[in-house]
């Protein structure tokens, strides 16, 4: 067996995950390998150090309110889906009438149609850009809970 394989077995050895044969084989190798012994020692130290640590607790009231907070979030998600559908439909309807009744209407002056058309496109681009930025900023705002 290659040295690298024995090194990998180190993990299984300290976690007691080797079969009895593998364990015997590894222990024989360990006797004669100073590098593996050194690494075993460093892993055992690591285990000792991490074993003495735990996750920071979260206040009990947060768990108590977890479901209601999740429910509200799901409810709002559904609300947003409907609002988005309505907004897209209204926007499409408005764009269609704006194009059909104004931009493509030969009775309106050409220069006016081009000018308003450019302004409209610019407005849509800015609106999308601001909405996108606000959505990302809201997710990343570290001071969201700070009362000013």
């Amino acid at each position: 067996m290659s040295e690298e394989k024995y090194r990998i077995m180190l993990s299984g050895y300290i976690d007691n995950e080797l079969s009895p044969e593998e364990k015997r084989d590894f222990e024989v190798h360990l006797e004669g390998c100073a590098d593996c012994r050194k690494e075993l020692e460093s892993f055992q130290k690591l285990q000792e150090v991490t074993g003495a640590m735990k996750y920071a607790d979260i206040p009990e009231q947060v768990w108590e309110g977890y479901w209601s907070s999740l429910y509200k979030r799901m409810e709002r998600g559904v609300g947003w889906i409907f609002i988005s559908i309505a907004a897209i439909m209204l926007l499409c309807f408005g764009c269609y009438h704006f194009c059909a009744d104004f931009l493509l209407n030969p009775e309106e002056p050409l220069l006016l149609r081009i000018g308003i058309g450019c302004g409209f496109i610019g407005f849509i681009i800015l609106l999308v850009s601001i909405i996108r930025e606000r959505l990302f900023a809201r997710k990343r705002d570290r001071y969201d809970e700070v009362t000013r």
Partner: protein
Amino acid sequence: MKELVERYKIKAYYLALGMVGNKDEAFDISQEAFIRVYKAAGKFKPDRRFFPWFYSIIANLCKDCLKRREKWDSRQIDIDDNDFLLVAETNPEKIILKKETARNIRKAIMRLDFSSREIIMLKHFRDLSYDRIAEILKIPKGTVMSRLYYARRKLAEILSEYE
């Protein structure tokens, strides 16, 4: 759904916490994971075990969160403000770790790449067996052992820089 949430909320939160190292983001991810479960409930095959599927949702959300953090926030999270791992010992006589060591562990864990951090958190902080880790990560047991070995080596190397 409520029953499922009550059963897995703590697991979901702590798994995410270990991977993103920030309490608020971990809380957010845990809730988002349940929303994804709810939306994708139809796709879930009843013959599969729930937790490995749920875990893959949490892991993907954590990866997205870390990518977003890299993209939008050039600063790494402040380890002092994100004390997600603490010294477990309460008896002062038995305390073998000082606060500084705990801080170093947090810093070192957050410097690991995602797959190393994931396997370290599952083994060292959730104490799962190799079989369980293999099932959750959908990898062979031998890969668990090798991944864990390289992750531990990396972690030990990083920690030695702080000593």
